[in-house]
């Protein structure tokens, strides 16, 4: 074992142990079943005298949404524990909880609970408050909203949220907000996170939701699981046991990550890749596959756009109508909605979905080259050619595969090696492993967090098109599986359509600076924040404070605990905690609708989001906007014919507590290769890229047709900021919090007391910085002070900070100050890692 660099611990810093071999460790021997109970001592909970075990859901944005017991004794939440899923009676690592879910006695009763409505009594951010009544608060808010709307237009009132409470009556899944805010024609601001993967993948396969991959239970059926930039063990911990099961059963684990994470320490193969270069690696792997003629030609011919001819003038596919063949009108039956197709998270629930009704549609076949050299409709060709060109008048056409190959051939391993800093032979080996399927490729938020993230995902899904490893057991490519099902009804009574477009939070600084959106006046003067903490979590804090907050006349926040956003608000409303109201959770890691019973009454003067909305509606002059009770809304959402056909209803949910909502178990998307694209095939050649948010921004359409590698905005050697700042700043989602949730939880703070930043010892020593000293991390956008932690897991040239410490917890500055608000025009995604910084010793002023 190599010597560590600390002083006194070096000799005894290792474990004094001796290995004891017991029996023969047979290769591939399976461990006893994980659900076997001890002969006499069982798992589970026994309610003590006067104690109730209430069915609850712990529901931050950790992709877990675990079903838990909320133990109530003498009217207080004293404990939480995992509660068995009825939808997963075999167990199978779905019954779960984590250290955060266990710490809820503090989240409910902690000191920073907001107890009553407050109005700020000093300057914004001074922390001076005066207590007001609910009536005063609602009156002041709604009077202000009316004044602002009268003066600036209806759109001047905006609302936004984060991802704090994933329930559907209160919290981010609730359509009730759209009912109110659509009614008053407010502007919905959408957070722009974790979307680059979505853009890159969904434009090739269509949308079954934002984050779609085989259920983790399916990993055990793979030969190899590739994890690209996902720190599963810490950031999506509840997926880990399934990965562990797979590894134990002999599935190979390949981890591609610049950082040696806990997950990497479990991998068979860890690829220490240069940040932001995943696309280059993937393209080079495709090079090897094509070069060795190992691609899955039948799959490509039948299920991808590979043989489709592309017009060089428009960049679009050639259709038979271009060749003079008239499209045919055919009758179609009403299509049953794909029960697995989830909505995007970027929707306004007032948008009326186009239902696929019965009627007719036009069929205009795509044109391909058949083996006999004749251009035909793809349905009519006996053997569509993957490669080839066709002269269509004076327009050259080439097959999509020809174009792809041209691009891919620019990335031989030797060249890609220079970009991603991985030896060429390792790239070749990776390609071979990927060819030996079935393989799962799981993309995390690593590559997603640079402005070239869309193309990294596009490349990954394109590779699946070449191997055909998608849509069956053990095979898939995606950004982890976290999405809901279809069939719920969000068109609640009095829901109206939104008059204003959904606006990305990344556009907001510019809109606030100019007062314009898409060239037209669109002043925004009031913001309502619920279930979120943008001031801590959104990029470029100083820009947020100056340009957004600086131009707002009214900031209202509803939250249960005192966050940075609360700190900067004008009026604060106490929202109640998860366990203080009945609710339903429709987007869960276990892929079940889950029921949350009310365990205790709302503390202090707190109210549910739904009650707050009722009061605001009344204040705006719409006292009857919410005629139903919360329970009736639950019925409205869940008692639909589509769900009834599958035995799902609110009463059923209340009784069974959890109901699985996918079509199969485990769920494997794209089974049967029915992709949700216009062509029904994998469109690795993208005709017209869909923008995440369209503000009329300019983008390079040609660039978007195919996956390619290009540098991110800042995080590379030689970027404009490189002469001043030489360290790429990455963040991690640490186990001790979910974004900024739990950041003030005192139980967890005992284990994780203060902001830290991890650095490779070589980089630290080169700057004369010692392990454990306080340092200032800085760039042109701001600074943050934290304790330096030596860690050899950190790639030289990088630093990693556990994210979402609140401003008040730093000695100075905060992490989001350092983060760029630059974005890729197509992905419109917060690029958290696309930053360069430097670091120096912290000298207190």
């Amino acid at each position, binding site marked *: 074992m190599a010597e560590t660099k600390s*002083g*006194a*611990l070096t*000799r*005894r*810093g290792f*474990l004094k142990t001796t290995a004891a071999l017991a029996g023969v460790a047979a290769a591939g021997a399976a461990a006893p079943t994980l659900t076997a109970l001890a002969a006499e001592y069982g798992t589970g909970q026994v309610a003590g005298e006067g104690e109730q075990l209430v069915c609850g859901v712990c529901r931050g944005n950790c992709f877990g949404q675990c079903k838990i017991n909320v133990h109530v004794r003498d009217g207080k939440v004293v404990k939480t524990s995992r509660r068995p899923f009825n939808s997963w009676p075999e167990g199978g690592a779905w019954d779960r909880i984590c250290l955060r879910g266990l710490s809820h006695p503090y989240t409910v009763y902690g000191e920073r609970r907001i107890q009553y409505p407050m109005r700020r009594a000093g300057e914004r951010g001074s922390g001076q408050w005066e207590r007001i009544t609910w009536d005063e608060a609602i009156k002041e808010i709604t009077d202000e909203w009316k004044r602002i709307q009268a003066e600036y237009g209806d759109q001047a009132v905006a609302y936004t949220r984060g991802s704090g409470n994933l329930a559907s009556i209160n919290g981010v899944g609730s359509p009730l907000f759209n009912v109110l805010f659509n009614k008053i024609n407010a502007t919905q601001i959408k957070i722009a996170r974790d979307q680059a993967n979505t853009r890159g993948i969904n434009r090739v396969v269509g949308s079954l939701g934002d984050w779609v991959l085989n259920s983790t239970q399916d990993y055990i059926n793979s030969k190899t699981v590739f994890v690209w930039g996902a720190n599963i063990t810490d950031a999506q911990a509840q997926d880990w046991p399934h990965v562990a099961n797979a590894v134990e059963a002999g599935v190979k684990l390949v981890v591609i990550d610049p950082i040696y994470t806990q997950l990497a320490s479990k991998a068979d193969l860890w690829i220490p890749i240069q940040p932001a270069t995943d696309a280059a690696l993937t393209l080079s792997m495709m090079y090897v596959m094509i070069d060795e003629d190992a691609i899955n030609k039948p799959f490509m011919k039948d299920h991808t756009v590979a043989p489709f001819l592309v017009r060089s003038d428009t960049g679009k596919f050639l259709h038979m109508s271009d060749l003079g063949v008239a499209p045919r009108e055919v009758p179609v039956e009403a299509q049953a909605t794909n029960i697995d197709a989830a909505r995007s998270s970027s929707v306004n629930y007032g948008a009326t979905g186009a239902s696929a009704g019965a009627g007719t549609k036009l069929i205009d076949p795509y044109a391909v080259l058949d083996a006999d050299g004749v251009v035909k409709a793809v349905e009519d060709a006996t053997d569509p050619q993957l490669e080839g060109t066709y002269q269509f008048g004076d327009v050259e056409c080439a097959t999509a595969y020809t174009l792809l190959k041209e691009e891919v051939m620019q990335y031989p391993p030797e060249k890609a090696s220079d970009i991603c800093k991985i030896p060429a032979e390792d790239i070749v080996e990776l390609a071979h492993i990927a060819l030996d399927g079935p393989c799962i490729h799981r993309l995390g938020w690593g590559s997603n967090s640079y402005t070239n993230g869309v193309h990294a995902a596009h490349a990954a899904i394109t590779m699946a098109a070449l191997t055909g490893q998608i849509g069956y057991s053990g095979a898939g490519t995606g950004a982890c599986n976290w999405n809901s099902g279809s069939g719920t009804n969000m068109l609640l009574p009095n829901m109206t359509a939104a008059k204003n477009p959904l606006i990305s939070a990344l556009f907001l600084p510019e809109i606030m600076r100019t007062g314009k959106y898409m060239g037209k006046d669109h002043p925004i003067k009031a913001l309502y924040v619920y279930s979120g903490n943008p001031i801590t979590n959104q990029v470029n804090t100083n820009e947020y404070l100056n340009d957004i907050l600086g131009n707002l006349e009214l900031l209202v926040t509803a939250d249960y605990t005192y966050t940075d956003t609360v700190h900067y608000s004008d009026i604060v409303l106490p929202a109640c905690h998860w366990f203080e109201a009945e609710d339903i959770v429709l987007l869960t890691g276990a892929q079940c609708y889950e029921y949350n019973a009310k365990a205790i009454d709302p503390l202090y003067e707190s109210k549910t989001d739904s009650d707050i909305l009722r009061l605001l509606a009344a204040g705006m002059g719409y006292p009857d906007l919410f005629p139903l009770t919360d329970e009736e809304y639950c019925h409205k959402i869940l008692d639909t014919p589509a769900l009834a056909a599958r035995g799902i209803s609110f009463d059923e949910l209340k009784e069974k507590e959890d109901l699985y909502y996918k079509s199969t178990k485990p769920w494997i998307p794209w089974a049967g290769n029915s992709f949700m694209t216009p062509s029904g095939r994998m469109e690795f050649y993208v005709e017209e890229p869909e923008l995440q948010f369209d503000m009329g921004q300019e983008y390079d359409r040609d660039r978007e047709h195919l996956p390619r590698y290009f540098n991110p905005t800042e995080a590379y050697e030689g970027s404009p900021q490189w002469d001043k700042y030489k360290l790429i700043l990455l963040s991690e989602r640490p186990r001790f919090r979910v974004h900024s949730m739990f950041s003030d939880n005192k139980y967890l703070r005992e284990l994780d007391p203060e902001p830290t930043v991890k650095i490779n010892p070589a980089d630290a020593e080169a700057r004369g910085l010692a*392990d454990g000293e306080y340092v200032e991390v800085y760039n042109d956008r701001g600074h943050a002070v934290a304790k330096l932690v030596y860690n050899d897991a950190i790639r030289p040239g990088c630093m990693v900070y556990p994210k979402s410490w609140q401003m008040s917890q730093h000695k100075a500055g905060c992490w989001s100050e350092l983060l760029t608000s630059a974005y890729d025009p197509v992905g419109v995604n917060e690029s958290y890692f696309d930053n360069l910084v430097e670091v120096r010793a912290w000298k207190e002023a």
Partner: protein
Amino acid sequence: MTDTSNVAVLDDDMDFAPAKERAGAKAAAWGGRGLTVGIGVAAVLTAIGIALWAVQLSGGMVQTAMRNLDSWGLYITMFMFFVGLSAGGLIISSVPKAFGIRGFGGISKVAVMSSIACTVAAIGMVVVDLGQPLRLWELFAYSNLGSPLMWDIIVLGTYLILSCVYLWAQVRAEQGKVSHTALRVISVVALVCAILVHSVTAWIFGLQQGREMWHTALLAPWFVSSALVCGTGLVMCVAAALRAAGYLALDQANLVRLAKLLAAFVLVDLYFFGCDLLTEAFPAAGGLAVVEMLTAGPLAPFFWGEVVLCAVAAVICLVPSLRTTPLMVAAGLCAIVAILCKRVQLLVGGFQIANIGLPGPVGPMTVTGWESGMAGAYQGMVYWPAPIEWGVALGVVALAVLVFLLGVKFLPLRPQD
């Protein structure tokens, strides 16, 4: 009755003729204003110590510098130290009587008194270290007779009583009320008890398989030899001081004889020291960490301090021309401080090297220097006493001094006039 007339050197300790002349007379109280002031100061410091102890108990031992990973500190260090001083003093006193050989000029009773005072200090140090001193009675209700700490309580208690009996016996013997034989027997028992008390104290540490530095068979003999070193040093200092104060007359020759004994004891102690170091270092395995910690690591000042002080004491005591009273007193002090250094090495050293020092969550209760993390906490000495510990310890020492001075004032401790 032993016929001592043929013994070459007659121990004037055993010649009680002059004392018999004063038979029946109460020992005259001795001492002037100086002693009274001394008693007063000691009493005040004792009271302050008790008050601080009350503060420690009510506000919590968190006020000390001890923490979970270094859970013993100044008090147990001082406990070891005072047991050593006490045992040493008594051994010096009882060996001559037990073996019927020449003593050290009648300082035997003073030596026993100092030994009693040190025993009081030792017991005091243990008591102030306890988290629940009010539960002391449990030691006698629920005794686990297999525990070395329990043995130590028993032996220490016995030893305290025995020391008092021994002192009383000497006084009565001088008055002719206790026979030579009886005194001889008591001194043998006292000697055995003194050796036992420090062996048992050693076994509190030496029997622990969990701490490599402590777990050696050598520890008990070594504690005894260390006890002899500091005990002899103490007796030398006390005797010289009392002589200077006019309390007793002491032949220089006796002081010299004590000094020579001290030298012999120091050399034996250093020999044990060397054996232990060599045994730890030779395999070049786990024990090397201990050696490195002592010779070059955080405890080096105490290690080299002991070595240097012992060397100085030995040289002074062995070189005739250096055996002047001031220098011999200095040698005695050096010996005492050297052994104190030894106690620190042992106590702190036992916690300085963690068996499992892996990085993990570190909080204010984990280890003394917790702010620096696991690695940082062990960079220097893992433990250094907090102010309140100095105060309470000083109070206990003051109590011992008080006991001694009261004995000097009111008890017939002087050798015959």
